[in-house]
Structure formats: C-alpha cells, structure tokens
C-alpha cells in the first residue's frame, strides 16, 4: 500500500490547524522533524469517514519559505524534498481576507513545481470585509486548482477532500523572474548557483538564507556554498532584495487583476471591527488594566476550578489506596502497590486539572488573537528584562505550578530562549511552597515581641519570600542569557490578526493532546521517582514491627540514615536530621515536607499543617544541650532554602521531556540545590554573627 503524502502549508493565523483537523478527523500522530525541535503532525485524509491512503503532513505555519528561523527551514526542506522525498502534493492554505500578504508565500510554494491545491480559507471573513476574490480568477491567474473553505464551520471540506484526491500531475515550477530593475549581480548569482546543479527554487532559498546569515539552517552543498562565498555580502543582500521585490511585484499585479489592489493598499478592511476592540484593549491605560484583569481572571479561575478537582483526585487515590490495602492485607507488597504505584499514579494525575485549565485558557487567548495584543503591550517591559515576549504567561504560571508553566514554553520558538525560561520558572515560588512557609512561620514566628504586629510581621515575611523568589528568577534569567545560553534578543515582527472567535474543538483537542503527552512522558518518570522515594524512606523494615512508619521506622530507613549522616552539613544551615529527612522526602513534592516532618515527629500527619506539628517543632529541644532545636533564624534559613531548592521530581520529569534529555534537568537540580544551600548558609551564619541565633 503506497501512501500518498500531502504536505499542508500556509501562513500562521489562516486556519490551517482547523482545516487539517477537519480533513483528518483530528486523528493524527505528533512527531519531530529529524534533528529539530519543531513538531510535525501527520494524519490520514478521511474519505467518507474512513482513513484513506493519503497522509496529510502539517508543516509549521510560516510567512515565508526562506530559512531565517527553524520553522521556515523545516517547511522548505519538507516541501522541496531536501532531506527525504518531496511530498506527492501540496495543500496550500490561504487566508482569503489577507491575500495581499498570503500570496507571497503562495508564489514561493508554486516555485517548487509540485502538484498544488489551493484552499482559499475564511472566505466568509473576506466577504464581510468586502475583499472577496473570484476563486476561478485566482485559479486561472495562478494555474492551480482553488477550493473555497470556511474551516470554522466545516464548509468546503468535502470539496477540498475531493480536489485533493483528484490532484495529480506535476506542476511546472512557476519561477518569478527578476525585474528589469534588478541588479545584474543578482541575476548572475542565481545563474551561478544553477550552474552547479542547484534547482532555481533552492537557489532563491539559499540566497535569502545567506543574506540572513543563516546558511546553517539550509542543506547547502559545498559547491553552492562556494558560489555564495565568492560574492560580497552586499551582492548577496541585493540579490535577496531583488528576489523578494520581484515576488511582491507579481503579488501586486495579481491583486490588480483580482480587483482588490486599492482596498488593501490604503486600508485594512479586515481589521475594522478589530480596530474598535483594540481602541480599548491596546489603549495605554484601559489596555493594561484589561490585560491585568484578564490574567487575574485566568489564574483565579485556575485556582478556583483546579483546587477542588485536585482535592477530588487526591481523595479518590486515597480511597483506592485504602481499598486495595484492605483487599491485599498488610505486607511489603501491599505497601509497594499502595504507597508506591498508586501514590505514584496519583502524583501524576493530580497535575491534570492545572495543565488542562492553563492550556485551555492559553489556547482560547491565542486563537482569539488576544495574545498578539498582549505581546504588543508587554514587549517593552519583556525586552528590557531580556526576556522573550512569549515567556510572560509561562513565568506567571510558575507562581501556581511549574509543571504546566514549563510545558507552556513550547510556544517560544528560539530554543535557547525557551531553555532560559524553563530554567527560570522553578525559581518562581509555586503554590507548593506555601505549606512550607505556613508551617515555619506558624511554628516559629509566633509569640515574642512583634515588629509591627504578629500577623503583619508574618504577612511581610511571606511577602519577602515571594519577592526574593521573583528577584532570583529574574536574576537567574539575566545570568543565563549572558553566559551559558547567550542569544540575541529576537526582533519583534509580529502580525496582529483580526479578532476571531476560537474554534473550541481545536482548543480542546490541543488540551487533550498536551495532557496525554504529559501523562505518558513525564508520568513514567514521576511514577519511578515515587517508588524510589518510598523505598528510601521505608527500608530497611523495622524488624521489631514497632511503629510501622512511625518516627523510629523513618529514622532507621535509608533516607533517615542519610539524613543523620548529613547532619554535619545541615548544622551550618541551622537544620537537624529530621528536617533532613523532610528535605529528602520533599523531592516528591515540596508540600510533602510537612507530612514527612510529621512522621519524623510521630504525628499521624494527614492534613497539610497540623497545629500539633507546629508545637512539636517549636518545643523540640536538643537532647545534648537542652536548647531549642529550631529558632526563628533556622526557620528563616529553611524557608530561604526552599525558595531556591528544586524539590520537585515532577519539575525534573517535565524538563526532561521538554529538553529530551537528562542534561538540563540535572543541571537545574544540582545548581538550584547548590544555590539553596549557599543561600541558607549565608542567612544562618550571618544571622548568628548579628546575634539573632
């Protein structure tokens, strides 16, 4: 069964995703282009509801095929067959309401000379804006078949499918000749490239890449590279300019022929409704206020809806654990199943509500066109901080939970910027640190002489931790961008599309895909870590059977022994071995510090912050000296430790998945732990010197 491969290409914001989903019934596999971090979706074309032998390959949406960034490189190489075989056909998706720009890309695709079908999408929007074109005229002018579609509603999908099935025959490569006004050096350069066996389409691709200093993205052969190196940078640049100018001259001629040239030269008819909305949403005052409100709404909704869902999952897991324990009876294997496997699965599933909600909101904001406005509003601030515009939402989400935040960095196209953002996120004080702060503050910062008043003092302390974490995150980003992950600030060349009502089916499909991906890839790592941690804190089994899981048991476990042997290292930061066990246990999740400490102090610690635990911590005295084990200073040092420490196996798991390797998660973990220790050390030792001990 030979599969017929059809590549789907188009500008961003033209509804390519919607059309692809409709043509494939939203059934597709996600994979990677070899050697790139760009993802590729492949699905079978549905004919009469059945998967046919035609495979649709969704290429990244790009404004051009010239390799100036990875996306374009991938698109060109896939379409031209540079790496593997060229596709049998191309489905070119254009935005009918934006032909003045879309046609440029269309001309580039037609230069390749593959059988091409043009899907004129969003014809309804074009009609409403008064810029409709006659599909037949366009077809005649470009020499390819044209179908009209409205992917939002599904209109024209059948026609598109039929046309794809009928599409055959090689097209002729429609090369746009350089203008008479073009420099002779440009014509000569193209001729020189073709003379060494380069196809005309590839020659144009190489010239543009060379002018952009990105030949590294192309599959340039030595003879071709030589030809390009022989001429000056100015010649290369002029040649690129001449090629682009010639294409746009042809676009202008086409627009004239189609009768819409005047409408799009002097105005932007498709933006008239959006302009009215933007009068508010990008207004200096109202716009910023709206942005803050929208962000607040999104995050409050996530907390509001995710919290009970997470609680529900935790209860369900707890119930399952008890029920299974009841069936299986007490014993080692039961514990492995309940505290290892079931707890591990629970640790994975508990993230699903936050991931789903965050991606739902991000998807809606993106598809509606609002995120482009947000980028417009924030760009000044973000670029001043050296950050990528699309890093804002992931960084902000880090205050809730690093896991969906790190997953959300995938929209940042530059790999280095993405990595910097991912490394910054764990420094943002996530919600799991809150129980720790609450415990320490509630245990040790009570009684005594308050500075302003006890509750205000406590509030300021908490705020101080959050401020410290934010500054640290920004500082980390600053350092990374200037050292290990140096990369220039990307320029902002961002289209502001018309506001559109998002197609909910697309958004929910993305949410489903990302959640499934998380469970499969990060989930396995989280499950493994859970089991390992359980073993470390449960073995060796207390032979006397006294206090199953009680303080004696845990102090005798491997984890307990490690913590006790680490006491010399814990002392300088003001902590004892019980906290040490807590730190080891908290690698599962920061809030686990509370329950692990509870176990170490012999509590039946089930809830997050029992009052008795606070009392136990406050009253704990060193058996040798009779002095209190924990003081305000040691509590402060512990909190500072947790501001910096990467005590979250799920973060490690997600970073591993996103960077496809262990190098960066390991770097992140060790660097953060190191910094945490040093910071706690400074706080505690300086505090002692100042007499606060």
């Amino acid at each position, binding site marked *: 069964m030979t599969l017929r491969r059809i590549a789907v290409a188009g500008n961003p914001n033209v509804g390519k995703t919607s059309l692809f989903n409709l043509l494939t019934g939203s059934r597709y596999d996600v994979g990677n282009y070899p050697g790139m971090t760009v993802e590729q979706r492949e699905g079978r074309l549905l004919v009469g509801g059945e998967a046919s032998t035609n495979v649709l390959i969704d290429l990244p949406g790009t*404004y*051009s095929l*010239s390799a*100036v*960034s990875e996306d374009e490189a991938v698109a060109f190489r896939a379409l031209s067959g540079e790496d593997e075989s060229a596709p049998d056909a191309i489905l070119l998706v254009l935005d009918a309401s*934006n*032909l*003045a*720009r879309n046609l*440029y890309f269309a001309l580039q695709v037609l230069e390749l000379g593959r059988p091409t079908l043009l899907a004129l999408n969003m014809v309804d929007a074009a009609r409403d804006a008064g*810029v409709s074109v006659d599909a037949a005229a366009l077809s005649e002018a470009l020499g390819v078949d044209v179908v009209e579609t409205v992917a939002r509603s599904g209109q024209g999908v059948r026609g598109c499918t039929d046309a794809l099935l009928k599409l055959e025959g090689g097209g002729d490569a429609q090369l746009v000749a350089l203008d008479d006004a073009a420099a002779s050096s440009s014509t000569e350069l193209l001729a020189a490239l073709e003379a060494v066996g380069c196809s005309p389409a590839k020659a144009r691709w190489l010239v*543009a890449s060379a*002018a*952009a*200093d*990105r030949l590294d993205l192309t599959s340039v052969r030595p003879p071709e590279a030589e030809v390009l190196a022989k001429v000056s*940078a*100015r010649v290369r*640049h002029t040649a*690129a*300019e001449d090629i*682009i*100018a010639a294409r*746009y001259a042809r676009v202008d001629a086409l627009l004239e022929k189609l009768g819409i040239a005047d*409408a*799009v*030269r*002097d*105005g*932007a*008819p*498709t*933006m008239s409704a959006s*302009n009215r909305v*933007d009068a508010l949403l*990008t207004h*200096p*005052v109202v*716009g*910023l206020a709206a942005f803050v409100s929208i962000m607040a709404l999104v995050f409050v909704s996530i907390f509001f809806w995710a919290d009970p869902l997470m609680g529900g999952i935790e209860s369900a897991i707890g119930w399952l654990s008890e029920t299974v324990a009841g069936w299986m009876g007490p014993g080692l294997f039961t514990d492995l199943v309940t505290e290892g496997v079931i707890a591990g699965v629970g640790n994975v599933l508990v993230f699903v509500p936050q991931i789903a909600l965050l991606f739902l909101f991000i998807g809606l904001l993106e598809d509606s066109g609002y995120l*482009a406005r947000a*980028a*417009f*509003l924030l*760009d*000044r601030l973000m*670029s001043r901080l050296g950050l990528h515009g699309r890093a804002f939402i992931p960084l902000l989400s880090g205050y809730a939970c690093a896991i969906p935040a790190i997953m959300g960095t995938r929209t940042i196209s530059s790999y280095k910027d993405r990595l910097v953002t991912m490394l910054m996120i764990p420094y943002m004080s996530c919600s799991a640190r809150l129980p720790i702060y609450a415990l320490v503050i509630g245990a040790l910062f009570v009684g005594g002489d308050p500075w302003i008043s006890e509750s205000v003092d406590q509030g300021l302390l908490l705020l101080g931790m959050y401020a410290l974490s934010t500054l640290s995150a920004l500082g980390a980003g600053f350092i990374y961008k200037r050292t290990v992950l140096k990369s220039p600030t990307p*320029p*902002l*060349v*961002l*289209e*502001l*599309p018309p506001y559109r009502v998002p197609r909910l089916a697309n958004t929910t499909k993305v949410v489903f895909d990302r959640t499934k991906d998380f469970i499969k890839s990060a989930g396995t790592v989280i499950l493994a870590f859970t089991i390992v941690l359980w073993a470390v804190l449960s073995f060796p089994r207390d032979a006397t059977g006294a206090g199953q899981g009680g303080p004696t048991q845990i102090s005798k476990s491997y984890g307990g022994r490690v913590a006790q042997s680490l006491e010399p290292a814990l002392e300088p930061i003001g902590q004892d071995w019980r906290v040490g066990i807590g730190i080891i246990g908290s690698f599962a999740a920061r809030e686990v510090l509370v329950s692990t400490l509870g176990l170490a102090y012999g509590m039946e610690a089930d809830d997050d912050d029992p009052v008795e635990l606070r009392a136990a911590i406050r009253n704990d005295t060193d058996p040798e000296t009779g002095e209190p084990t924990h003081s305000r200073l040691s509590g402060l040092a512990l909190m500072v430790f947790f501001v910096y420490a990467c005590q979250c196996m799920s973060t490690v798991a997600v970073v591993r998945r996103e960077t496809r390797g262990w190098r960066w998660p390991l770097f992140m973990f060790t660097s953060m732990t190191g910094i945490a220790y040093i910071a706690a050390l400074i706080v505690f030792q300086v505090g002692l010197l100042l007499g606060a001990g």
Partner: protein
Amino acid sequence: MGGTEHPPAVPRTAADLTIGQAGVIASIEGHGSVVVRLLEMGLVPGTRVQLVKRAPMGDPLQLQLRGFHLSLRAVEAGRVQLREVAS
C-alpha cells in the same frame, strides 16, 4: 517657505510617523536576518505603510500595510526608510 512657521518634520523612517500618518517605503536599511524578514513581510519599496498606534510606552509600533497590521519595535521601524508622505 518663509515667515515664522516651521514646516512639519518630514518623517524619514516609519519610526518618525505620527498616528494616522502614512508614507511610501523607499528602502530598508541594513543587512541580516531582520531585514530579510521585514522585506518578506511586505515592507518592500513602494509599499504604503501607516502608523496605527504606539504601545503604552511608545514602543512597539502598530503599522498598517498591505491590508494587515504588523507590530514592530521602534528600532526596527527606524530601518524602514520612507520616500514620501501620504495621509
């Protein structure tokens, strides 16, 4: 031109445009990937470009050209040399 009236400053680049003012592109200054990207987005000589608005702190700019809207930083807009003004 005489008297005490100062002639309005003629915008030399897209960064100099005032809100609602439009110009026709003469050329894009510079080399490299940014310039290639600007050209390919449609900022080619002969194209009419109009300033729609500026972001709260004056940067970036929202430009209208070829029937769509584009966001550019002032530094990038400064590369877009204009040859005449239209309104």
